[in-house]
């Protein structure tokens, strides 16, 4: 099994660049074909963080704009160098250097690289963080203390991890439950969420329009949380894994379900009530006010919103709700910040609710 995996990974690495270009074209073809009917979504989605959840290095704007990234920790010095569409990740202890080509860039803002070495896949020990515009140790790997140069390259992925990584960050990376790197399409494309989109598109091109993929808008809030949670982590996954503390702030479906106001059957509190996955993330806090006020009447209103007689109006403000009720929380490494989706009345000095 291990030998088979190693062989497939090696084969994939050889093919990666060539297949990458083909898959990129396929991605564009699908998006452009879908755009025939779904123009608005197809225009904006490819540039969203999900659309760029995985990028080919030669098409990665971050690597192009940062051709010389460097970092040192302890005895090891890291470089990520981009020259003429080729990016190489290197680590040296001063006497020996390991250099590996980067085939896969994970993430649009903060970025980590999955590396292939001796038939195994590794998560790069260092990542790029926009908050410092530089490299730092990859989130979750701060406690690793490499004993030699090989270990300093990164964290070797456990057997099932590559499937999870590529399963979420790419499209068609996992087919029939198996990691198939040669079919990877970068990022989350139409087919990733709308299973059956490709066959629907082909049918539509032949004039058949009665084969649409399941309508995700019809899912309940609980189901939407679990659907998005396949990558953003479901409530169950987080509990089962016993992840606790500020690190779990990045698992929004988990945090949201902990909110007192979460109701699995109320569409006003689902992921897609506030976020359009086809659009870039809206960062203006006030733009979410309307979502909150859909349940919590403004203090100036005469009656609470329909269907939620127990949803109280805020006595402090009627704008920028999320600035107080969904405070920003930094991951323990201080490099990435998320709005806490556990919606609540935050008491001064209160510990992170867990």
């Amino acid at each position, binding site marked *: 099994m*291990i030998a088979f995996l190693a062989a497939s990974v090696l084969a994939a690495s050889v093919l990666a660049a060539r297949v990458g270009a083909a898959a990129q074209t396929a991605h564009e073809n699908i998006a452009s074909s879908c755009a025939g009917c779904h123009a608005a979504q197809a225009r904006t989605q490819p540039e969203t963080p999900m659309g760029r959840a995985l990028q080919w290095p030669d098409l990665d704007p971050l690597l192009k704009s940062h051709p010389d990234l460097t970092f040192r920790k302890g005895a090891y010095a890291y470089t990520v160098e981009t020259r003429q569409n080729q990016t190489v990740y290197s680590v040296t202890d001063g006497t020996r250097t390991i250099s590996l080509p980067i085939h896969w860039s994970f993430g649009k803002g903060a970025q980590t690289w999955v590396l292939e070495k001796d038939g195994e896949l590794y998560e790069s020990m260092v990542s790029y963080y926009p908050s410092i515009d530089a490299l730092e140790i990859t989130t979750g790997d701060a406690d690793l203390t490499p004993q030699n140069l090989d270990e300093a390259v990164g964290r070797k992925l456990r057997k099932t991890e590559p499937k999870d990584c590529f399963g979420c960050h790419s499209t068609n990376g996992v087919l029939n439950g198996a990691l198939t790197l040669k079919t990877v399409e970068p990022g989350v494309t139409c087919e990733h969420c709308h299973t059956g989109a490709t066959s629907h598109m082909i049918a539509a091109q032949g004039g058949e329009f009665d084969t649409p993929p399941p309508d995700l808008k019809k899912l309940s809030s609980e189901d939407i949380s679990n659907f998005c949670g396949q990558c953003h982590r479901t409530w169950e996954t987080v509990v089962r894994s016993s992840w606790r503390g500020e690190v779990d702030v990045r698992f929004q479906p988990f945090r949201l379900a902990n909110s007192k106001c979460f109701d699995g059957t109320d569409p006003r509190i689902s992921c897609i009530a506030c976020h359009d996955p086809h659009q870039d993330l809206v960062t203006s806090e006030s733009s979410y006010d309307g979502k909150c006020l859909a349940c919590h009447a403004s203090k100036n209103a005469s009656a609470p919103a329909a269907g939620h007689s127990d949803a109280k109006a805020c006595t402090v403000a009627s704008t920028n709700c999320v600035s107080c009720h969904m405070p920003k929380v930094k991951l323990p490494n201080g490099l990435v910040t998320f709005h806490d989706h556990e919606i609540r009345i935050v008491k001064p000095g209160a510990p992170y609710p867990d």
Partner: protein
Amino acid sequence: MVLIKSRQKRVCTVLIAAFMLLACFPRATAQSAPESDLIEQASAARMQNDIPRAIELYSRAVEVNPKWPDGWWFLGSLQYGTGAYIPARDALSHYIGMIPSAGPAIALRGLCEFETGQYTEALGDIQHGISLGAANQPRNEQILRYHEALLETRLGNYASALKTYTFFAKNGVTNPELLVAIGLAGLRMPLLPKDVSTEQQPLVSAAGDAAYRFLAGDEQSATQAFQKLFRVYPSAPNAHFLYGYLLFATDPDAALAEFLQELKLAPSNADASVMAAWALLLRNRAPEALPHAQNAASEAPKLPSAQLVLGKSLMETGDLNGALEHLQQALQLEPDNLETHLALAKAYSKSGRKEEARRERAVSLQLTKGNATAN
């Protein structure tokens, strides 16, 4: 069995040695000690290895003063060494009654109960003893973990037994009897190694060997051992289930294939049906999981996991009322199962029963509180 006996004697020696030290503390002797003559005579007999005389003297001493804890300890441990398990158990119970946190004594009582066939009590005492530090020394740990796993198998807790046996595989401890013991857990046979018939021995040993290799982390060698096992014993009950069970954490698809193979051989295997359903549910293939879950619940309605997978399968295929009914049954059968509470939280949430969903979420968080890790 000779091996177990010799090991038991060794652990007894170590456990006793540990407590000899405690017994020397002034606390112990000052606490309700009988006449010093009797103590000295008993101690001398023990030191001279005159065990029958020592037992007699300690028996008289605790008769004179039943509140003398050390007397009960020496009496119980010496009786255990002679194979007088029932009086040893009772003497140790007197000691534990006075010193409830005495891990080695509790563990030794568990070993007595193992010998007297009080398997449930034995497992409880051994685990309690371990939690109180009785397995702090490597030799003690081997003996106590081995008996713990034997008892888990004997009581039908096969998954726990395999988990316990991982300790031996990871530490490279092996011997023929251990492989038989692992084979029993793997093939889900509620027996002790001594109860395995001569005809069954090769199959059980081969299954144990394959599982041992897997638990030791040598998957390649384990794969070969399992393939050989399947060739030699193509219809052995639970052999494919065992391989699937071991593969499940790292390769759920390969595990599913093994569970389905097991069901081909034994369609009424409720455990295999449960695992097949579970593997399919994890792959978001609930409609395929449902018939397996129904089969499991039909074959073993009192099996909590059967009710759980049926509840989950019904939930994921849209029958929320049916889901809640079976999840409630699973909860009644096993109140502290995290997966049942997780499933109930989801089912209540999907049903719009917000407060009940919150309650189940709170229980789930509570159940996992002690395991908290940062990712």
